[in-house]
Structure formats: C-alpha cells, structure tokens
C-alpha cells in the first residue's frame, strides 16, 4: 500500500478546493446542450382543442407526460415518485388507459389521504395535457402504491 505523502496530500486538497473558472465559463452552454437533447418516448393521443376542426392529430410523448407528473408531485406533496408507468389500450397502443405510480412517503403522513390527493392531481394533469375527448374518457384508473416511507422529507432521504 502506498504510504500517504503529507506534501502531496496537501497539494491534492489545494487542487480540490481551487475554483474551476473553465467550468463556470461553460456551465451555461452545457445546460443548454442538455436542454436541447430530446429523450425518445412513445406517442400518446391527445385531444384537439374543442372547436378545432383542422385535419390531423396531436400526440404527446409519454416521456413528456411522465416528466410533468414527476415534477409536479414532488413539488406539491411531501412525497417522492420513484416510478410512473402508463397502461395502454389493448387495441390502440397510443391510447392511455391508466397510470400506475410508486411513491415514497413520509412517516406521519396519512398515506390514504395523500394517495387521494396524488390521484386527483394526476387526473388533472393528464386531462390538461391529453384532454378528454378520446374514448378513454375521464375514467382512466390511477393506481398509487406507497413502496416506502422514510423519516422526514423523502427528497432528502437516501435509499436503503
């Protein structure tokens, strides 16, 4: 095993603490490049705005819907979504039939009440993003499973 060298150790800690102006200069362009990078997803039927009679159709990627749900749920409630799965129609695999969510909650929270709020929020968001004129209508099942509970804020707790 290599003997620790006090001088090199201190030099390394100095290098670690030194600012990286090169990173500061490029960080905005790195973020812009990431934001411009699409993630491929599966198209979901979306209803046109009522009164719109133009030919054609509207689709929204499942990735877009999943990202909105994940962000809104963790922003609104003391919980952490860990999986969001979509269920598709047997005959039309672009038609959303249901949503299943795995959630980490927090000790002290009424999980059933939280589950109700999550289901209502998901229904609102799906309606807002996809509309409701498709045959799936307003009755898509939304299932919530609490897969874990942690002490304190689930966004600040490490997984076991």
């Amino acid at each position, binding site marked *: 095993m290599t003997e620790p060298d006090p001088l090199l150790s201190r030099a390394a800690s100095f290098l670690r603490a030194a600012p990286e102006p090169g990173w500061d200069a490029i960080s905005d362009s790195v973020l812009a490049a990431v934001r411009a990078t699409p993630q491929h997803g599966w198209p979901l039927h979306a209803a046109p705005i009522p009164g719109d009679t133009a030919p054609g159709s509207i689709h929204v990627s499942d990735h877009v819907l999943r990202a909105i749900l994940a962000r809104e749920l963790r922003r609104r409630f003391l919980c952490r979504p860990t999986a969001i799965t979509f269920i598709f129609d047997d005959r039309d695999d672009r038609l959303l039939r249901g949503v299943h969510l795995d959630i980490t909650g927090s000790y*002290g929270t009424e999980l059933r*009440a939280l589950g109700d*709020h999550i289901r209502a929020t998901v229904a609102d968001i799906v309606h807002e993003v996809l509309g409701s004129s498709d045959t799936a209508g307003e009755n898509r099942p939304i299932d919530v499973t609490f897969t874990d509970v942690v002490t304190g804020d689930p966004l600040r707790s490490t997984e076991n």
Partner: protein
Amino acid sequence: MPIALRSGVIARTETGLADAPDDVLRTAAILGDREAFEVIVARYGPQLYRYGRRMLRTESDVADVVQETFVAAWRQLGAFRGASSLRTWLFAICSRKIVDTRRIKRAQPIDDQLLEALPSTAAVSDPFTAASNAAFLGALEQALAELPARQRATWVMREVELMTFPEIAQVLQLSPDGARGHHHRATATLRIRLRRWQ
C-alpha cells in the same frame, strides 16, 4: 392549481433539489425531471472539468468532453440502474469520451531543467505559506503532466476526487489492484519530481 389538503397530508414548502442526495436526483431524472438532472450537472460539472483538464491537451477539448458527457448521461439515464454510484458512472462516461477524443495529453518527456529552474526550497519549511505556492503548484501540474495517462487519471481520481480504488477501477475498466498499482507508481514518481519541495 392549489389543492386543499386534508389534515395529515403535508404540502411541500421546500421545493428545491439542490441538497437532495444523488439517488433521489437519479430517480427523479430517470422519470424525466430536468430540474433534477440540472442539479446533477451543477454538482459534478466542476469535478469532471477538473479531471478533464488534467487529461486533455486543450481547454476546448475539455469543454467538448464535459458537455458530451452530460448529454450522453441524459440520454442513457434510463439504462442506468445504480450498479455504481452516480459519480462513478459519470466519470466512466467522461473517461471513455476522453479516450475517444484521441487528444489525450500524452506523457511529456521529463525535463530536469524544469525543476532545476525552480527556486531552492532549502529555507522554506512550508511551501503553502511561502511566496512560492504558485511555483510549487506549477511544478505539481507539470509533474502530473509527465505521468502516463492512466497513472495520472488514477492519481487525480484518488487524491483530488477522493474516489476509492474499486470506483477508479470501474471508471478505467481495471482491477482494483491494477488501480492501486498505477496510483503507487504515480505517487512514487511525483515524490521524486517534487523532492525539492519536501
């Protein structure tokens, strides 16, 4: 749209992710939460840049590699199951990008005159408190640049980034003992190159 919460359901008041643990960020980012991924970029960007700067020839190469690393990470997140730490995974992507660029800073021939030109440290008991700090760090950077790439990568990840040998081995696709060997040889060389500062 605000939701009236029943008692016992706690609405979130703190919505930021800046201090969230890595695995929380990873899970959120896999679900497509870009804000979570941007925290990952801010957390590990400086480390990857610092590593890349010691491995590549030019600052523009470093900028390209770090940007490509995060773009690739964003695309590949869905396939990352957490078998390694997030940091190790990012360093592994970065390390492969560095090799792919073929612009690695090659080991430079040792130039004894370089260190001869540095001021004598006979009267300087602590180079970190003396006026020669900059010269010492310059000598260290030069000595690092003289190391073969794998030795340099191993030393930087171990000593500067405080990674374990198994983590370094994953990044460089070596055995942990192989990583230890590279680190040992790098340290021995650096001691010799910097002996005037001891």
